[in-house]
């Protein structure tokens, strides 16, 4: 194949892993979509009625199962958790956003592993000596740590690894979307985490949606001021990324200025007066929590059985 075509396609493939997820974020999810799935909205379905401590436990269980079992168990958990997004407030939109976030994770992770994973690992993982080459990179790509060729086994390997993250990220977002920061604070304090650490987490949960909003404003204004105005349209996602990087400093400075007010607001309302706090509505364990505990116990038992049966984390996955 023509040297120029090979180089052009190779560089397009190189950027695909970074640019495609960014494109999905910007064109499909949008920064408002991110805000939607990173903040609490009150509702009445089971996730919202669940004790936040149980939700944290659920997150831990999902993490453990995804980490120790074969990839398709992670995939099943991803599908199940994603389907439960329909039970959230404005469930359809959250499901769609969650679906695209999962796609981003899969593409990003696959692209982060597929071109770099040494052939010896792929040979061990898939019990083969010959790998199926899909695309031969120009020789100088090895400087970036690339293997000489992109292989089918590399892509599958990357996809399987992504299943370690997808379920965990989806269940973490469930915690954020269905619990208020102060509920999380209470739950974490109950397990003995110091109040100042949990408070930082609470403030972070409150701040994350704002960060998206502020970065969005800053990037749009940079575009208005001419960012990328002389470049072809195709490069706009990269300029958007550049704008977001430039926005980091003013957004942080802006947030830090506000953070002092937050600290004053907390400290002048007796925050840290005592090592513990009381609650207006004490946390109780309800029927939803008992059901969730039963499901978690069952999942853990299945995991133990699966690992004993050889469906554990070890390579090969098949």
């Amino acid at each position: 194949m023509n040297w120029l075509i090979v180089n052009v396609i190779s560089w397009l493939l190189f950027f695909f892993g970074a640019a495609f997820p960014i494109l999905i974020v910007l064109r499909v999810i949008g920064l408002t979509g991110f805000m939607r799935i990173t903040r609490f909205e009150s509702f009445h379905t089971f996730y919202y009625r669940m004790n936040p401590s149980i939700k944290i436990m659920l997150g831990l269980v999902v993490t453990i199962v995804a980490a120790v079992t074969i990839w398709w168990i992670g995939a099943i958990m991803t599908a199940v958790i994603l389907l439960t997004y329909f039970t959230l407030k404005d469930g359809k939109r959250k499901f769609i956003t969650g679906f695209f976030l999962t796609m981003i994770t899969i593409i990003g992770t696959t692209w982060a592993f597929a071109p770099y994973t040494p052939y010896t690992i792929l040979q061990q993982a898939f019990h083969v000596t010959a790998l199926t080459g899909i695309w031969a990179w120009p020789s100088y790509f090895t400087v970036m740590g690339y293997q000489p060729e992109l292989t089918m086994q590399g892509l599958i390997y990357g996809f399987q690894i992504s299943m370690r993250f997808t379920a965990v990220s989806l269940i973490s977002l469930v915690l954020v979307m269905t619990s208020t920061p102060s509920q999380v604070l209470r739950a974490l304090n109950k397990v003995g985490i110091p109040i100042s650490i949990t408070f930082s987490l609470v403030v972070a949960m409150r701040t994350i949606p704002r960060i998206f909003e502020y970065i969005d404003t800053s990037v749009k204004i940079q575009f208005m001021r001419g960012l990328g105005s002389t470049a072809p349209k195709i490069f706009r996602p990269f300029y958007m990324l550049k704008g977001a990087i430039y926005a980091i400093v003013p957004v942080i400075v802006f947030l830090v200025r506000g953070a002092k007010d937050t600290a004053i607001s907390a400290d002048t309302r007796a925050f840290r007066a005592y090592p513990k706090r009381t609650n207006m509505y004490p946390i109780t364990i309800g029927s939803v929590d008992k059901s969730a505990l039963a499901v978690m116990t069952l999942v853990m038992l299945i995991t133990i059985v699966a690992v004993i049966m050889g469906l554990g984390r070890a390579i090969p996955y098949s």
Partner: protein
Amino acid sequence: MKAVEIHNLKFSYLGNEEPSIEVENLTIEDGETVLITGRSGGGKSTLVNCITGIIPHITHGELEGSVKVYGNDVAETSLAKLSSEVGIVLQNPETQVMNYGVEEEVAFGPENLCLAPEEIVSRVDESMKTTGISEIKDRETYTLSGGEMQRVAIAGVLSMRPKLLILDEPTSNIDPEGTARVFDILEQLKEEKTLIVVEHKVERVLPFVNRIIVVNDGKIFLDISSHDLIHHIDEMQEVGIEVPIHFIYARKYGIDLEDLESIREKLLEIKAIPTAPSRSPESNTLMKTSVRVTAPNGTELVKASIDLQESHILALMGRNGAGKSTFLKGIMGFLEIDLKSEINVVLAGKDISKEHIMDRGREIAFVPQNFDLTLINKSVETEVAYSIKKRKISEYKKRVDEIMELFSLLDYRYRDPLGLSLGQRRRVAMASAIASGVKVLMLDEPTSGQDYFHKEILGKELKRLKDLGYSILIVTHDSRFVYKYADRVVVFDHGEKVLEGVPEKVFRESGKFSVIPPSDFLLREGLK
């Protein structure tokens, strides 16, 4: 009983040699309602921070002298203990409110005090009742309007049951309707608590306070009864404080009255009614806009059209949630992707409705309320040069110098924009916005949080830009600023344009849409 006793107070921030506040003696009696006013940076906030204990417990520096609140030495008493004696409501409720739910925000303080659940419930209910937020107790705080959020912030402090309540510019970020609700709460609380209100808007607070303390250059410049204000108008103006216009005229013509309508009658008798500010005559339409925005659930958020004339200042007013910001976002192409919209923007005969933000940016500049977010460069000079370079405009150095001179920024050209004062940062944001040669400048709430002195500077800058041929659209709640500087006003309500015309015409009817006419207008036109 003394609520506050200050003796030989001197405080310098770390790294500053000069003290930011010096007070020899100051006493505030229990039950008093005190206004502390003065220019930005004059020392007001430092003084109240010394009273609340924020200095020295959170903000450190060199502190001398003693501050006592209800007998407790502030430096020696923990903030937790002080929180039951003194509470503070800050300027920006968005940064003060840290919980997602209204009820849990109000309960935050009592929960920190480890009170019994029944006691917490009782305090939360009481505070929500006082501030009128019981009906929104189940709402998420981020869905609240600025006024609602400020009332939640007040309730969160009241639930600590402080004897002394300090409100630091509590209305600077909220609309007139929200402001009126906050002042209703103050009226109610003045019977129960000692109140200190830090505020630029002397006129609005005056009916609620019995004492005025002016802080200037870190010292107490004036300490008077509110009834004596009329005799100290000159001193107040001397240090750049916005005073009621009818007081200025009463003083000027020796009228010994305080009530606006009575002063107006006297002025009519002596034919000394003030003239209306000069306005630019009608000119050609530069930009025709029509914006219709619908939420994903089908609710119509905005359906309105606005025309902007050449070399004109147009003010867009209305209560929070009236659709002003959505309208601006529509014009600029800033709308969220899940909103449905029909936008038409024709500028100088060219339809730019379908153009990308970066192409619209050739014609329109925008300065958001949080203008710090636009400051991305390391020096004022590179910030102003940014769009000129990006747009590859020739002779950019000359143009950068011209614009920096226009906004008095030449002395700061090598300084980091984010390290400048609030007023200077706003000027950098405006200068860099217009640098690439736009015709239209749009500003969202440029007067928010600015004192009289800085608002006057802003008004003069806008007039200068107008004289240079710029057309300006500003969203603001500040009626007095609009009356003084705008050529035309549009009022929005529930997403629709309900009033349009010159300020003299619009302010006659604007009250029913929560746009309160300024005293300048009332003195000229009368209360009816």
